[in-house]
Each structure stands twice: as C-alpha cells, then as structure tokens.
C-alpha cells in the first residue's frame, strides 16, 4: 500500500511536471507557422513518398530476439533471489532455463542470425572473396552465362 502510494505520488509529480512545462510555454511563446516552416525537414529537398516505408527486416529480428531473451531473463529473476536458500532445487529447476538460453544463443550464432552485415554477398553487388569468376559461378551459374552472352554479343557487333 505504502509502496504503491509513494510510487503514484511520484508518477503524478512527474506527469504534472511534464504537462506543466508543455502548457505554460503555450501562453508566452509566439506561433507563426509558414509554408516552408511547415514542410517536412529533409534538408530543403522536396519530400518524395511517405516516410512510413517498410523497414529492414533485421530490425524486426533483433526485436524478436530481445523478446525471447528478456522474457527468459525476467523468468529467472525470482530463481536468482532464492538461489542461496534452496541451491539444489534451484539448480534442478533453473538449469533447463539457463540451458535453453545458452543453446538458443549458440544456435542463433551458428545460423548467422547475429550478423548485422549478412546480405552483402547475395545482393546485386556480387562480391567474391578472391574476386574470381569461378568462385562467382559456384554461387550463381547464371552470371557466367550472362557474361558469356554479353561477350558474344560484343564480338558479334564488332
């Protein structure tokens, strides 16, 4: 009761401060909107398209990993509190959880989900480690055919 009461007083104080500071300035500050001032701030360039575009899927995957990890960690907190008092039971009950985190993490690492830069190899910027055509052809045989066709077209023209 006391805990909740002091927390809610605290929360009320915080929200009161925020709204006070937002409202009190309204009385003294000027308001002079203009056409250019109201445009989207993109360095003076006219805006192209909406900004609510589809974002990179990697951000979504990070959020998923976070969710899995943080829920696991949140479940372990009570376990950590009683660990000293009931060590054997805690080990038996907690080992699957901690094991799951570690095995899952090793799996993520192994599958390469933790790499932020992972798509550079297979995009239109086709990169090769030794920059050789044979290596490239191993990845994507069609490139070799494209290149041959293009070379053939070039010689045919000349």
């Amino acid at each position, binding site marked *: 009761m006391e*805990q909740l009461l002091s927390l809610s007083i605290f929360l009320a104080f915080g929200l009161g401060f925020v709204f006070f500071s937002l409202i009190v300035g309204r009385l003294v500050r000027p308001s002079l909107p203009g056409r250019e001032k109201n445009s989207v701030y993109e360095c003076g360039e006219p805006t192209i398209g909406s900004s609510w575009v589809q974002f990179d899927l990697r951000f979504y995957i990070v959020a998923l990993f976070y969710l899995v990890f943080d829920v696991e960690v949140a479940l372990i907190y009570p376990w950590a509190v009683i660990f000293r008092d009931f060590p054997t039971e805690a080990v038996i009950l907690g080992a699957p959880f901690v094991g799951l985190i570690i095995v899952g993490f090793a799996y993520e690492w192994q599958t390469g989900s933790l790499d932020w830069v992972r798509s550079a190899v297979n995009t239109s910027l086709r990169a090769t480690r030794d920059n050789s055509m044979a290596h*490239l052809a191993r990845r994507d045989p069609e490139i070799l055919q494209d290149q041959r066709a293009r070379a053939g077209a070039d010689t045919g023209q000349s």
Partner: protein
Amino acid sequence: MQDIISCLQSIATPQLIAHVIVIMVIANLMLGGCAYLILLERKVAAWTQDRIGPNRVNFSFGLVSLKSKHFGLGQALVDGVKLLVKEDYDPPQVDKILFYLAPVFAVGTALVGWAIIPWGGLMQWGDQTLVIAAADINIGIIYPLAIGSLAVYGVVVGGYASTNKYSFLGALRATAQMLSYEIPMSLCVLIIILMSGTPRAEDIAVLQAAGGLHHSWNILFQPLLAVIFFTCVLAECNRAPFDLAESEQELVGGYHTEYSSMKWALFFLGEYMHMITGSAMFALLFLGGWDLLPFLGALPAVGGIGLVLLKFAIFAGKVFFLLFVMMWIRWSLPRFRFDQLMRLAWRSLIPMTLILLLASGVIVYLRLSPWYFLLANIAVFVGGLFVGPLLPQGPPVNRRVPLAGSRFSPLVEVAAKG
C-alpha cells in the same frame, strides 16, 4: 471529522512522509541539475578541445549590471527560458496525439526510473527505521530495468509520429540499439541479484558496506561485469560513442528532427535523466551505494539525519564522478558504426555475461569466497581474448565490395578466358 483525521494519520505514516520529502527534494534537484549538467557537458567539451567554453552569461539577465561573470553559470537558466519561449510549431503532417505523447513518455519514464535508489540509506525515527528512497518496492532493482524498457516507446513513438524519414530511421536504430543492450544489462543485474541473494536496493548497498574481506564493493569482485554494465548504460542513454540514433552526419537529428522548443527540451531532459539514473544504478550495484570506502565498513547502516545527509553527499559524489566519466568518454571516443554496435552487443557482451552467469551460479552453489568471482571475471576476459577469434565470424564487413563488371572488378576478361 475524527474519522478523517484518523484516516489521514493511518495513511500519512512517517515512512510515506519520508518518501514524499525524498521525491520532492531529489526530483527538483535532478531537474535543476540537468540544466547544469548541460552546461558542464559544454565545459567538458571545451576543455577536451582546448577551448574556454561558455563563460559570459552571469546572473544579471540584463536587469542589473554585474561585474563578475560567475563562470558563465547563468547560461543554464537562460537556456531554459529560451526553450520555454521559443516557437513550438507542430508540422502539419505529424500524428498529433502521438507527437505530443512521445516526449511525455521519454521524460516521464526517465523521471520515475530512479525511484528505488536509496540515496540516504536507512534512518532511525523513533522506534521505526525509514528507508530514504522515493519508493521502497520489493522488486527493487528490477524496477528501473522495467521502466528503462518503457523508455524505448518515447523514441519509437516520436520517430513514427514525426512522418519524417530521418526521424523514422533514427527511431529504428535507437530501438534496435536499446533493445540489444537491454539484454546484457538485465543479465548483469541478474548476476548481482544472484550473488547478493536479494533484489532490494537498500539490502544490496548494506551488503557491500558491511566491511571485512568478504563484503566489499562489487566492482572489486566483478570488474568485467562492471565494465559491461557501464557500456550498456552508455548505450541505453544513446550517449556517444553509441549515439547512432542521432548521428548528425547521417540523420540530421535522428528521432527528434521535427521537434522544437519545449518538446525537444523534454527529450533532452530525458536523456540527461537517464544518465543520472544509469550512474546511480552503477553506483548502487558496483560502487557500494552510499558506502565511503571499501573494506572499512565506515558508515553504520542505520543512523540519524546527519548520517543520512552524509550518505546522500557520498552517493551524489559518486554519481557526479560517473557523469563526468560519461562526458569524458563522449568527447574522447569516435562514434561506432551500426554493425560494430550490434556485434559488440550480440557477439561479446551477451556471451560474456551468459558465461559469467554460469560461473557465478557455480560459485554461489559451492558457497565459495566472493574472491572467486574476481577469478571468474579474469578467466572470462582472458578466455574471450583467446576463444573469440575461433568462433564463427560472419561475413567480413570492412573489405571492398566490388561491383561485378565494374572497372575495379573486370569480370569480362575472366569470363572470356573461362
């Protein structure tokens, strides 16, 4: 009438009054302190770059003429007034409700995050012991983590509602960054709970302040963990070298590009409050809270008003030192690249904290001396140096990526030969 008075008396216990006093004193201290932290930040930047920094504005404010410049201390107040009277326009394309809600989220969560920090330890009041903190919640140090996770909403909502591509990208980056560093941070807190056996903030401080060889500051037992925690605090505050959310060269201002005047100031205030909360958490978990010196047990756990004030001064001194270190780091280190940032979190901090969690569990299970924690920390650090390069690396990111068929990667000749 009698009922109302007795009802009030039952609610307004000395403990609650102590809570309210702490809330009023420290919240106002923090709000004022944030303004002067910004001035200090500018001064530190100036010293780092061999400049003088703001030193002109004194307390005359153009009303009276004063000879002394007061080291430019008037700057913070003048900046506050400026932010209050600046034009605060809402761009017409924004989502109005969310646009107003985002700074409220940002500063509200930062403001209530430090509620459990025991600034003054315990106080003897008659036959009661009062906790000198804003709230004495039994989940203790898990509470700031929960509130800290909510701070992500301020950033996300602000970036989404602005309808600006820079804001949106900055919000995405900030989200990924804050989420990634939340995991090692919560694991650090988990390890501290594991070794202390309690989540209550005051108990953790008392344990570290008990004195003797087996109860000392946690930074001496877990130095690696302390470094990891401090890194995570920096990343959670979006501070340099982790300020990718607002990297000026790429994203203008990041998620607060479209904000102006007081709403922008609230975002800024939220960042500085997060710094204070993060420093206070670090001081509590690793630097013994209000303890004066390790090993000595110089201060008793419970005392009168004088002791409370002394403890508060020590705690505030530690927080101030940590804030200074944060500024020092900001103006000394260059910014990380985003893939480096993610690699640091996912490939070094998280595995290290997971292994430390296992090692700490074993040490607590076997009831060994806490100095084995130090041994485990050194072992994990040295082991990481040797094992790290052997683990799966992922594609190299720093090599030149040749465009097939460009003049740097002449594929046609090779193809003709093959």
